[in-house]
């Protein structure tokens, strides 16, 4: 098993309550997995001369000011940052390339969880209840979030093996299911230059999406290609800067349900994770069809609107 939840707010008046709406959804999915828990939350966007990095270290007393000082020196500009449990969010000048190379050479123990203008990925070993409290998820604000509760099957229970997995700028992926061709696919993707941190099958799905998008494919095209190249069972949810996308394999053993009202689009492995949302009794509810890609987001052209892409 494993549980997935996603919440995308169409009504901007609710953005201050994103965490308060989202945390109960995550906690309801504890029965589907409590080995580790993670979220990607989007909001508090930086301007495009900056990049937002979420960094994590296993030592709760880690010397973060030293890292920030090195980053400030490296990019030659002040870094706005804050700490949340074992992680920090740092807003760094530039596109992040210099910052990441500095981190990997001077602070190899620091994990870069996410990079982008909007995304923050926070994850750790522990139940949804524990992780929600640790990172104070109910207090968070933002435009949208996706979350994952893990019941480990294919690889060890570690923070690195927790979801979401970053798949590029402002992108991340969570997975419910198991992939049967992940070893061969990982070997292939490594040859293409994709770097993997774990033996986790879901990280291979994330690496695959990253590789396809590096080839110039759109997210939707990458997910359609995944239907042929990922062998196994999966419901995948991909967080993007302005929304999220959902796809289920063609056999569709792994569950997913979607709900939409005037205020939000929500997704979960099971309806009970949606039951606490306001107005859910009158929401439009449906299960995503097998082998079809669904995506929501707001675009510069359309303002906030729903895009339902049935491309398969």
């Amino acid at each position, binding site marked *: 098993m494993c549980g997935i939840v996603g919440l995308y707010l169409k009504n901007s008046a609710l953005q201050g309550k994103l965490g308060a709406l989202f945390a109960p959804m995550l906690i309801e999915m504890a029965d589907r997995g409590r080995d580790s828990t993670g979220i990607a939350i989007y909001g508090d966007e930086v301007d495009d001369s900056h990049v937002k990095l979420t960094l994590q270290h296993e030592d709760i007393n880690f010397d973060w000011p030293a890292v920030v000082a090195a980053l400030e020196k490296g990019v030659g500009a002040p870094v706005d940052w804050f700490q949340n449990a074992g992680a920090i969010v740092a807003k760094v000048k530039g596109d992040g390339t210099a910052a990441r190379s500095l981190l990997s050479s001077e602070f190899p123990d620091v994990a870069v969880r996410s990079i982008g203008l909007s995304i923050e990925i926070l994850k750790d070993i522990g139940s949804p209840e524990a992780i929600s409290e640790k990172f104070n998820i109910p207090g968070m604000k933002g435009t949208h979030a996706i979350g994952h509760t893990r019941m480990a099957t294919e690889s060890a229970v570690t923070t690195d093996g927790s979801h979401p997995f970053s798949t590029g700028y402002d992108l991340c992926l969570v997975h419910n299911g198991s992939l049967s061709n992940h070893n061969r696919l990982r070997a292939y993707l490594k040859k293409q230059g994709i770097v993997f941190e774990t033996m986790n099958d879901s990280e291979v799905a994330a690496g695959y999406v990253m590789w396809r998008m590096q080839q110039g494919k759109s997210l939707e095209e990458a997910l359609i290609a995944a239907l042929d190249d990922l062998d196994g069972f999966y419901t995948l949810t991909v967080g993007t800067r302005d929304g999220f996308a959902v796809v289920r394999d063609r*056999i*569709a*053993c792994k*569950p997913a*349900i979607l709900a939409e009202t005037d205020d939000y689009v929500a997704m979960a492995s*099971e*309806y*009970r*994770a*949606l*039951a606490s949302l306001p107005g859910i*009794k009158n929401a439009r*509810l*449906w*299960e995503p069809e*097998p082998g079809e890609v669904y995506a929501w987001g707001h675009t510069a052209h359309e303002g906030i609107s729903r895009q339902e892409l049935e491309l398969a």
Partner: protein
Amino acid sequence: MSEYDLQKVSIREVNQALHDLTDGANDTEITISNPGGMHNIACGVDSPVSVKIDGHTGYYCAGMNKLANIEVNGNVGTGVAENMMSGTVRVRGNASQSAGATAHGGLLVIEGDAAARCGISMKGIDIVVKGSVGHLAAFMGQSGRMVVCGDAGDALGDSLYEARLYVKGKVKSLGADCIEKEMRPEHLEELKALLDAAGMDEDPKAFKRYGSARQLYNFKVDNMSAY
């Protein structure tokens, strides 16, 4: 007349109360509110009572039902009425995958759509779906009847034994060993009785019948090379 609010009492308490009802009990009308997508609601009921559930339910709702008349005013999750023995289960909304799985008897009515694997390994249940069914409906069905007033997805009746399938709309594809069969008067009669029992106002003549070609029943020595 009993009412249970699942926000106030646990699912175990509710199911125990349902199990404690015996044949001839006075309390034959039970209402369950605020199901909130919980699993295992009204499982294993074995007396001729009426249970109304007001809202959406999770997995295995009305599983193993015997004799009871269970109605869900909402959508149901995976495996509604799985392994039902007798009685009636009516879903006012949509059903998730594996509705009526392995069920031996009774009538399951789904007024919306059913997702993948509806009636998987059905062993005698009657299933009537007002909407459409997803892929692999009636997979390995052994006996019983399935009526679909809408469309059927890929691989309808794959590896079917003796269940009889009636579909009004389009069938995306037939599964291995499933074929269209002639609709004879006895089938029209059977279908009409099923539609009447489910309360569906449909013309039996608009349906087509599908069943097993019976080519996968026994091992054929000619197929040895495939192993």
